[in-house]
C-alpha cells in the first residue's frame, strides 16, 4: 500500500514537485496500478531468468579516432542560457 509519504519520496527521487492535489491523485492511481500488478505474484518465477532485452546485446566498439563533431554553437543552440561555450545554470551552493 503506497502512502502519501511514499509518493513524496518517489517524487523527490524523480525530481518532481507535486501539489497536494497531485499527491492525492497519484497515491490513489499508483495504488490501483500496483494492486493490479500483484497478479504477477500468481506465477512462480524462481527459476526463470529475467529478460531485460530481446536481442543478445554486446558492447559495440569503434576505433579511437578523431572525428567530426557538432560545432559548439550548434551544441549550445538549444540551451536556455549559455555563457561563452558553456551551459549556464543557477547557483549550485
Amino acid at each position, binding site marked *: 500500500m503506497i502512502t502519501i509519504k511514499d509518493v513524496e519520496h518517489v517524487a523527490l527521487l524523480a525530481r518532481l514537485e507535486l501539489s497536494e492535489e497531485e499527491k492525492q491523485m497519484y497515491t490513489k492511481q499508483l495504488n490501483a496500478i500496483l494492486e493490479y500488478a500483484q497478479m504477477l505474484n500468481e506465477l512462480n518465477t524462481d527459476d526463470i531468468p529475467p529478460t531485460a532485452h530481446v536481442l543478445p*546485446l554486446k558492447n559495440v566498439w569503434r576505433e579511437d579516432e578523431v572525428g567530426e563533431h557538432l560545432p559548439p554553437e550548434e551544441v549550445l543552440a538549444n*540551451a536556455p542560457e549559455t555563457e561563452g561555450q558553456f551551459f549556464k545554470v543557477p547557483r549550485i551552493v
Partner: protein
Amino acid sequence: MELYYLTAHELHDLLVKKEISAEEICRAVFDRIDAVEDKIKAYVTLTRDRAFARAREIDRKIAAGEEVPPLAGIPVAIKDNMCTRGVRTTCSSKILYNFVPPYNATVVEKLEAAGTVMVGKTNMDEFAMGSSTENSGFFVTANPWDLERVPGGSSGGSAAAVAAGEAITALGSDTGGSIRQPAAFCGVVGLKPTYGAVSRYGLVAFASSLDQIGPFTRDVTDCALMLNAICGHDPLDSTSAPRDIPDFTSCLRDDVKGLKIGVPREYMGEGIDPAVKEIIGQATGLLASLGAEIEETTLPHSRYALPTYYLIAPAEASSNLARYDGVRYGYRTEDARDVVDMFMKTRSQGFGPEVKRRIMLGTYALSAGYYDAYYLKALKVRTLIKQDFDRAFEKFDVLLAPTAPSPAFKRGEKTGDPLQMYMSDICTLAVNLAGMPGISIPAGFVDGLPVGMQLIGKPFGEGTLLRVAYTFEQHTDYHRRRPSL
C-alpha cells in the same frame, strides 16, 4: 479519386509516366491539409516551404531523365518524436516545445535518401505515453471517421494524417501498440517491425527495449515500400540488428496456401467487443477459404502482459526522461532559487500528468526495496511471455488476433481511469515485450468505424506478415474506403 487519397505506388506510376508532377502531389496534400486540418489537428508543425522545394527537386530529376526511387516525391508525415534537422521536435511536450535538433534521425535520413517529401511533424501522446493522443501537451487529434472519437495513440497524428488524406504515408513509433492500435482505429495499415530491424537513432527514447519505428500506409504494397526504405543495420544504434534486408515487395504474393495461422484464444475472449470478434472470425474464415491452415492456439501468459508492460515501460521511461532538466535544451523554469530547484520546477511545469504518473511508477518500481518485487519480477514474466511466442512459432507461421479490443472510443471516455486506458493496448503489448513484428490491417467496419486485424510474425518474419496481409487485401475492399470529411 483525389490525388491526396491515392497510394504511394499509384502516385509513383503517374509520376514516372509524367502524368502528374511531385509539385502537384505536394499541392494536393497541402490543399487537403488547409481544408481539413482544423477538424483533424494531426500536425504539430508543418514544413510547407521545405516540402515544395523538395518536390520541385524531384521534378527536376524526373525532367532530366533520372530514374527515381519508388517513394520519390511522396508526401510523408513524421511523428514528432523523431529528430529532424532544423525542424522542431517536441514529442508533443511543453518541455521540448522549442527543441530544434541539429541532426536527423536515421529513418529521416533514409526517407530523404528515398526521395520522400516531409510534410510535417505529427501530434502524439506526450513522449509516446498514451493510447488516444489525448495526452498531447498541445491539443487533441480527432479520428477522421468520427470527429468525436480518438484516433488511437500514441501515433494518433500520423494515423489520422494518412486516413484523412493529409499525408500519403507516415512514420510512427510503437512501444506497446502505438502504431498498430491507431492504424486499427483510423482504418489504415500500420506495421511494428521486429525490434532491431529499424534504427532508433534519433528517436526520442521512451522505453528503449520496446520502442520501434514503423510505417503507416493506405495499403500493404506501400507498407513494403516504406519498410524497404527504413529497415537496415545502423552503426549509430547499438541495438540495431546486423542483418541483410530482403526486398519486401517480393513478398507481396496473393497466396496463403499451406501457411499455418494460429489464433490465440486469449485474444478472442473476455474484454473483446463481440462485434470485433465477429469481424476477426470472418477474416479468419476468408484466409481459410484461400488455403491457410487455421487453428486455435494458446499464449497462456497473455493476461500478464499488461501489468508486465506497465512496470517495465515506466521503469525505462523514468530513466530516459531524467535528461529533461532544463540545462541543455527545452523548457526551463524562470524562477529557480538554485539548480536543484530549477530541476524540480522545470520538470514539474514541463511534463504533463500521464508522463509524471509513469515517471513516478517507474521510479517506485526501480527504488530500493521494491526492485525485486516489481521490476525484476516483471522481467522474469517477460521471459515467460516470450517463451509463449517461441513455442507458438514452432508450429505456426503467423498468429492472428484483433488489434484492439474495440473500435475507436469517444474522446474523454477513458481519461479519468488510467487502467481502463491502458487496457486499450491489451492486444498489442505482448508483441513488444517479446520483440516480434506485428501488422494491423483494415478488416471490417462496425457502425462506420474501422476494425483492425493484427498479424504477428516470427522475429524478422515481416515478409510472411506482408504476404498474408497482401492476400487478405486482394480479396477485400476495406483498405479502399475513405472517411467523408
